[in-house]
């Protein structure tokens, strides 16, 4: 299971302040805490700074990579900001994200094909958000077709079925779970990724919902998750689910986590 740490996002007040004050120590520490907790990628998002997004995103890339030796998940809907951020990035980034929306696909294509990288592909049609699993898979299949036609390897594509709040639509959980399974079955080699926390918007005890949803997604074959790796109870759920799904031989990772005191949740 690939873990993308979500904590460096300027829609969070303290991150926004740190970016504005160019507080490299604070940002570095947020990156380190996620790396120590097991993140494989660190997501960076400066989307709230509309006019200075590219500049701040580049600063985040350099600051985080000075603090931790990990590739980053460059998170922006803006091709321009991503183009700049990739130039500052060391190693192979994950680009978050591309979609079929008007203009966005064509503008993003040269950005994601210019260098080796992994790509998060949002399963939304050109002009509407998806509701059902079929709508997600239909949009996703078209994205896969277009990206592979441009030479992107299937293994580098991460399908994001777009998790929406279950408080608004009680059927969204099932729609996402079915879509994950369909992608994993119909496109062997492709990856799936979810931003989990959307699912619990508008409800109490969000951590419980997020961690339960993570286990359900993992059963369907989810290969990557964007989450808060410093949430020890969420990470404990992830470890025990991996073990129960037969992805932890001799229960080694689970026992190791226990011995490091990581399961006291």
């Amino acid at each position: 299971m690939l873990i993308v740490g979500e904590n460096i996002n300027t829609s969070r007040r303290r991150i926004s302040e740190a970016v504005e004050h160019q507080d490299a120590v604070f940002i570095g520490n947020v990156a380190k805490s996620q790396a120590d907790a097991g993140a494989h990628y660190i997501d960076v998002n400066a989307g709230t700074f509309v006019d200075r997004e590219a500049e701040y995103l580049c600063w985040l890339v350099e600051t985080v990579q000075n603090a931790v030796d990990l590739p980053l998940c460059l998170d922006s809907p803006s091709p321009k900001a991503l183009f700049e951020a990739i130039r500052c990035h060391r190693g192979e980034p994950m680009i978050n994200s591309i979609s079929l929306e008007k203009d966005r696909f064509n503008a993003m294509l040269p950005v994601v094909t210019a260098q080796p990288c992994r790509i998060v592909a949002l399963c939304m049609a050109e002009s509407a958000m998806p509701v059902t699993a079929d709508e997600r898979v239909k949009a996703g299949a078209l994205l896969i077709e277009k990206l592979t036609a441009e030479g992107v390897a299937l293994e580098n594509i991460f399908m994001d079925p777009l998790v929406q709040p279950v408080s608004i639509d009680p059927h969204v959980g099932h729609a996402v779970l079915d879509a994950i399974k369909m992608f994993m079955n119909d496109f062997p080699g492709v990856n799936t990724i979810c931003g989990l926390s959307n699912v619990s918007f508008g409800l109490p005890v969000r951590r419980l919902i997020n961690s339960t949803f993570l286990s359900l997604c993992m059963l369907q074959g989810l290969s990557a998750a964007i989450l808060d790796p410093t949430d020890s109870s969420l990470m404990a759920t992830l470890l025990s689910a991996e073990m129960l799904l037969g992805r932890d031989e001799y229960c080694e990772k689970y026992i190791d986590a226990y011995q490091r005191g990581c399961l006291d949740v």
Partner: protein
Amino acid sequence: MTTIETLRQYINKGSIEGAVNQTQKAIDDGLQVKKILNDGLIAAMDEVGEKFSKGALFVPQMLRSAKAMQECMELIKPFFREGDLTPKGKILIGTVHRDLHDIGKNLVAMMLEGAGFAITDLGVDVSAEQFVKKAQEIEPDIVAMSALLSTTMPSMRETIEALQRAQIRNTVKVMIGGAPVTSQFAKDIKADVYAPDAGSAVIEAKKLAGIS
């Protein structure tokens, strides 16, 4: 407890069947529909909005209450006479150009409607020109815009500039919101108000309409 008080309670609890039956009872008792609307339905939704803002109610509960109110409205609509339905203000709302996210916008529209505003919802991917055209047509008190992407936030500025060019910026108030939107951004683009969620959108709209 009076019939109206009981009605408020049903709306508050989100009991659709109870609220509808109670509304029918109020009609049968000969209560004025205007009173049912203002003292019953709208007053109850005010309480719902307040509780939601304080975190005492959650989104699905709010949705149920709004649904209950809508069903009751259907019931009393045929009884309204000319002039009975005087909304607190007219609001034109939409998700901005090239942005397809409507969950937040829909919640805001629903709560504003519950508070007694007349809502015209242009949906998603609404261009500056579409906002202006509709605003010229219906002359709203407030133009409300939502955006969820950093790439679509500049469309808010474009809409405000388009309102200016059409010389109607002074006749409307502009309210904006959405996950990446901040109060600083609202100031930067000279919007009148930033509302971070549905509850505060209602509070701010009432302030703008001069009724709280």
